């Protein structure tokens, strides 16, 4: 009987220790996190609107669209994650740099420049044969109903910086 009681007590004690352990751990976490935030640049969130260096020199941008991939840290509710982004980048006839989002305006597949042999000089979406002219405007009669989004852009020290995709200038 007393043996059993002793055991019960010790089990309760054990539980108490465990709970305290968890509490202590959580408190430590609370204490640590602001410091970590301050010193660890990886944990700093890139606020929306920040432009990222995509690793492309403007000298390498030609009239032929090229695909650029980069990633940004994004905090989205519960998820903190690296988000991959891509763009099709080229110089247009008036020598402006253009960076289109490759996300199809129909249902969001990734479009490719000259992705179909049948349609040279166009962006092509493999999912439902959506098409866009080189200036990003959707080809009438194909599923997308809007032109490709354009990235916010800046040139710093000869490098291309891209931000968030915005509606096409003609949209």
């Amino acid at each position, binding site marked *: 009987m007393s043996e059993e009681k002793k055991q019960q007590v010790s089990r309760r004690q054990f539980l108490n220790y465990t709970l305290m352990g968890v509490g202590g751990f959580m408190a430590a976490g609370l204490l640590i996190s602001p410091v970590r935030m301050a010193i660890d640049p990886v944990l700093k969130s890139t606020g929306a609107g920040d432009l990222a260096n995509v690793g492309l020199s403007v000298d390498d941008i030609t009239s032929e669209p090229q695909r650029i991939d980069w990633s940004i840290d994004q905090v989205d509710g519960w998820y903190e994650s690296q988000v991959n982004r891509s763009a099709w980048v080229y110089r247009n006839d008036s020598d402006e740099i253009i960076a289109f989002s490759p996300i199809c305006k129909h249902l969001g597949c990734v479009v490719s420049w000259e992705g179909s042999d049948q349609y040279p000089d166009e962006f092509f979406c*493999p999912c439902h044969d959506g098409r866009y002219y080189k200036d990003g405007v959707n080809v009438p009669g194909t599923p997308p109903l809007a032109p490709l989004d354009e990235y916010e852009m800046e040139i710093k020290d000869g490098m291309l910086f891209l931000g968030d995709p915005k509606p096409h200038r003609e949209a």
Partner: protein
Amino acid sequence: MFAMKWRKDDLEKYVQAKEYIDTILMPLIPFQLTNDEDIGKDAFQQEIMTIFANEIEQELSGRVLLIPSYFYLKDAEKAIEVERLNQWISETENQPFNHTILLTFDPSWRKHEKELEGDLLWLPGIQTGDIHSNEMQSVIRDQISQLSEIIRSYW
């Protein structure tokens, strides 16, 4: 952001757009807690598989729905698993899908390929390495573009 993952918002969009989304992507993931030497490696393969599945889904999200992964014991009797897996596949047939793509690193499925009611896409596993390293990222990117190429060839 467009996506077709197994999440409330995505599935609500799916229901609106189902006539366009005709392909299911289902990762097959083995599980074991017997063999210490392989636990890490197996988990690593699952991490890579998750990356593959998410990336392909992103590339082709207007036509592909990523459904929950099929988990099974690593050394379970495959004949039984084939039957269970086919039940999953027939569940998807309650919606207008034309293709079910089964994504796996596990070579033992290949012997049963003919009995499966979906298209098996077997990939040679990446054994080990640092997922965040640049080499690994370019290997993964490469494989992903090949994979979406293969999936498009089914369409």
